[in-house]
């Protein structure tokens, strides 16, 4: 991991000794949490089942991993010392290549064609449902990531409670539609408005806070909103949630088999998939709207003020930028897009409950923004595909059952791997997948710079 290891001897004996130490540590970590499994017996006491085989496997894995890592480090070190570095640099390339401008069109093109490709690949519209549903899920996170990117990536305000605005949007639509019978298209802007208002409300008290403190307070706000949703049963029906939320309509035309339904109106044969495909393009449009607004705002004075705030709040204030307004607009806009996404979530699921809006969701969205490389729109999209789509792959790894036995469910390991991936990404690529940025405002030529020059989360 650190350079210190590579400097320390890399003889075979040293490596093996080090790896043995790791295996020993793994043994210690496995006792007793892996070595004995507790099960509730008939008499509701706990039975212990020893599993020393599993512990041995873990230790062996730790040993092998450490040996491989040390060998790799040693080789990298050898390569490094062989390469001639110009004096006075630390080997890092500061001015990176120009950013390929193909990213966004490629992504949009693929996203647009996805339902068609899925349908052709699987043979029928019905069979492609799984893939289109997955697409909707990923795009929801892309949208949330882009929304949070305004707050975290552009304005540099670390927000760990973003899911609160997602919840506000979802509950706005759920409550407005079930109690007042308002349609989705009326509720969508209202949900964004409410979420934006909440963004300002929660933004006000935290104006003075920075960095970690800001993160923790926003986390507290997120949890408070969730707890209120659980406990205010008169309004929200508590943890049971709100069900039978009206479905989305095609601008007023419902997706039903009836006479005035979507299929009859357009002379198609009825297919339940029409609604799913419509939802897919709806979230794609919403996500692209988020992206477009962000990209345009970055060029406006307010967008530049956000980035200035991220770089140096004190300099920002000295130059006469109103930091209050700057921060609040960032919170409000980020929250508004969260609200849109939430309202989409409610119309897609037809059911909302507080459990969908726990801290883990906030962590996933933040992880997407950070892994994407904060401030990079393309990076966020790639990270969302990797973080949400990757775990989905686990569902399809049925063959692992034949390796690990019948009781093995790869899906159980989804969050475990997710947590590991977050740590691994931070260790190997703390600057995210897309680690270069194009400055919004430049003097003369516009060059992409390394993400290491971009500040984060101090504002």
């Amino acid at each position, binding site marked *: *991991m*650190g350079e210190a290891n590579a400097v320390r001897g890399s003889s075979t004996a040293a490596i093996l000794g080090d790896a043995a130490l790791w295996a020993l*540590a793994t043994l*210690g*970590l496995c006792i*007793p*949490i*892996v070595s*004995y*499994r*507790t*099960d*509730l017996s008939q008499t*509701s*006491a*706990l039975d*212990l089942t020893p599993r020393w085989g599993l512990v041995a496997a873990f230790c062996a894995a730790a040993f092998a991993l450490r040996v491989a890592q040390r060998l790799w480090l040693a080789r990298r070190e050898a390569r490094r010392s062989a390469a001639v570095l110009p004096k006075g640099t630390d080997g890092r390339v500061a001015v990176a290549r120009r950013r390929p401008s193909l990213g966004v069109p490629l992504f949009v093109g693929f996203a647009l064609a996805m339902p068609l490709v899925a349908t052709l690949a699987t043979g029928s519209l019905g069979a492609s449902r799984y893939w289109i549903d997955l697409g909707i899920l990923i795009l929801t996170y892309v949208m949330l990531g882009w929304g949070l990117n305004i707050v975290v990536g552009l304005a540099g305000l*670390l927000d760990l409670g973003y899911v609160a605005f997602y919840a506000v949007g979802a509950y706005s639509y759920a409550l407005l539609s079930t109690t007042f019978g308002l349609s989705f298209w009326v509720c969508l802007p209202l949900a964004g408005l409410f979420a934006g208002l909440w963004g300002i409300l929660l933004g006000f*008290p935290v104006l*003075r*806070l920075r*960095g*970690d*403190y800001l*993160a*923790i*307070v926003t*986390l*507290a*706000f997120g*949890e*408070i909103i969730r*707890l*209120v949703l*659980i*406990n205010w049963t008169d309004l929200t029906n508590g943890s049971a949630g709100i069900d039978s939320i009206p479905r989305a309509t095609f601008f007023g035309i419902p997706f039903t088999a009836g006479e005035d339904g979507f299929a009859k109106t357009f002379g198609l044969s009825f297919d339940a998939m029409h609604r799913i495909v419509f939802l897919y393009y709806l979230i794609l449009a919403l996500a692209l709207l988020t992206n477009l607004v962000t990209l345009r705002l970055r060029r406006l004075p307010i967008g530049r003020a956000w980035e200035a705030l991220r770089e140096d709040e*004190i300099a920002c204030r000295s130059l006469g930028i109103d930091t209050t307004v700057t921060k609040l607009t960032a919170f409000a806009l980020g929250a508004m897009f969260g609200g849109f996404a939430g309202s989409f979530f409610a119309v897609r699921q037809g059911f909302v409950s507080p459990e969908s809006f726990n*801290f*883990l969701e906030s*962590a996933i969205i*933040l*992880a997407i923004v*950070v892994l994407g490389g904060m401030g990079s729109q393309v990076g966020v999209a790639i990270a969302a595909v990797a973080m949400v789509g990757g775990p989905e792959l686990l569902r399809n790894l049925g063959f692992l059952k034949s390796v690990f036995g019948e009781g093995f469910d790869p899906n*159980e*390991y989804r*969050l*475990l791997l*997710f*947590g*590991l*991936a*977050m*740590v691994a990404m*931070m*260790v190997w690529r*703390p*600057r995210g997948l897309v680690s270069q940025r194009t400055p919004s405002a430049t003097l003369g030529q516009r060059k992409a710079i390394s993400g*290491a020059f971009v500040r*984060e*989360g101090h504002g």
Partner: protein
Amino acid sequence: MDVFVQQLINGLTLGSIYGLIAIGYTMVFGIIGMVNFAHGDVFMVSSFVALILFLLVTTWLGVSSIALALLFVLVATMLLTALWGYAIERVAYRPLRGSFRLAPLISAIGVSIFLANFVQVAQGARNKPTPPMLGGAFTLFERDGYAVSLSYKQCAIMLVTAVLLAGFWYLVQKTSFGRAQRACEQDRRMAALLGIDVDRTISLTFVLGAALAAVAGVLYLVYYGVVSFSDGFVPGVKAFTAAVLGGIGSLPGAVLGGLIIGLVETFWSAYFSIEYKDVAAFSILAIVLIFMPSGLLGRAEVEKV
């Protein structure tokens, strides 16, 4: 009055547990300026370790004295959890030193998610009850049929907390490790120049924090008699609140904050609404950070331009 005294006892017991966890937060924040988000989950892991060790000791080794078994479990859990603390620091935080500021926080969130799900996969998602231990209580006084009692458990919890805190205070104030630790807290670079092994000191800080969280884990298990994989998050946030309330970086502050949070939570549940007790704790966190960021006993942060 009777209810008040009873709640006072309950609150102080709960507060001791929060205080022990809070020390881990405050020490780590003091020395490397990061919120160790995974600390609550380390506490949860230690509770599980204690549960399994207790079962092992009582059923397989046939130790019949509960007190003796608990003493062994306490020491063994502290050691094993300290190893967890060390391993987490070594793998997830140390490579990030000198990286950008958000990296350790994100990494810590990753560790937190990993630990909770690791325990879920390894031990199952259901609540795990312990066999009853340390039953019985002293009755302090009785009036109008309402007995104010101090259970043996509560006694043990407060006693263990007091003894360990005294030992811990000695360690930080009087030993060479404690001096090194406080030096690193003040100025890491200067400490390194004076020959202190900063990496080792930071590791030991994590080890100590984890060991104290393990004490809290054992006491939590004894007090509530049940533990589940998701039990790390909320006590973790409350303990962090305690650390912030007491002034982050200040050790007596962490304990004081823990006691206050424990009392507030208990009294809030008793006199207002039990449903909103977590809202109360989270609100305190927000209010303290907004209006009194340096806490009760902390130093005010000086902003240098």
